């Protein structure tokens, strides 16, 4: 079972399969990200990251650098 403390959640504007596919190349290979998924059917397009080492701010910067809105889901 996943360690719940390693789950990072974000509200994004990643709305389409195309946007998701573009991010896939980065997220799949990013050091420290063990699992990720985006709920495209959610009104907040929730990005869920499982990472033992990264924090919210690092993910926000990573997603912002790809031209997407991203903030912590609390």
């Amino acid at each position, binding site marked *: 079972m996943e360690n719940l403390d390693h789950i990072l*959640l974000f509200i994004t504007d990643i709305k389409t399969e195309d946007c998701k596919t573009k991010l896939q190349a980065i997220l799949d290979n990013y050091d420290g990200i063990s699992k990720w998924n985006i*709920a495209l059917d959610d009104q907040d397009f*929730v990005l869920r990251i499982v990472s033992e080492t990264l924090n919210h701010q690092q993910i926000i910067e990573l997603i912002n650098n790809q031209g997407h809105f991203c903030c912590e889901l609390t």
Partner: protein
Amino acid sequence: MRIRDEEKVQLVKQKALESLVKDGFEGFSMNKLAKACGISVATLYIYYKDKDDLIISIGQEEGDKMADAMIKNFDPTASFEDGMRIQWQNRYAYVMANPLAYLFFEQLRTSTYQVKFLESFMQKFKVVITAFMHNVVARGEMNPMPLEVFWSVAYSPLYSLIRFEREGQSVGGKPFKMTDKILWQTFDLVIKALKN
């Protein structure tokens, strides 16, 4: 440190079943579910990675519970009639005790989730029931026949009665209340049809 709150998880499962049965898969959302549970959306996403993950997890868990209920006190070496009687008792008791889960399975059966759900659905049950069927055919208590033929005769009558009972009415809107007499009268006819 985040700790999995089992009470909250149970509440989520119960409310999810209620919402799914009431609104269907299309009308169901993580936001609506979080509101119904009085918890944050974030909490839901900590437990489940998305809506599909939640639906499939609940389906598999409820499927396991149903499988356990169906093989309770069931002996695969029992005679055909005794084994079938236990199956009827178990199936009837399960649906009456778990009406929401039963309706949820009906929805899953005709949905795009079906394939994922069926991958692991009732594996344990299938092993036991296959052994039972093999034994009764080997003893000559019943002739071999296609599964669909067997199921249509063996269980469709039971599920028709269950539907009448759940709806409180039978054919043409006639008021209906299940009794032991009706259940076992139907069962006896089923056995008569199938048993050599």
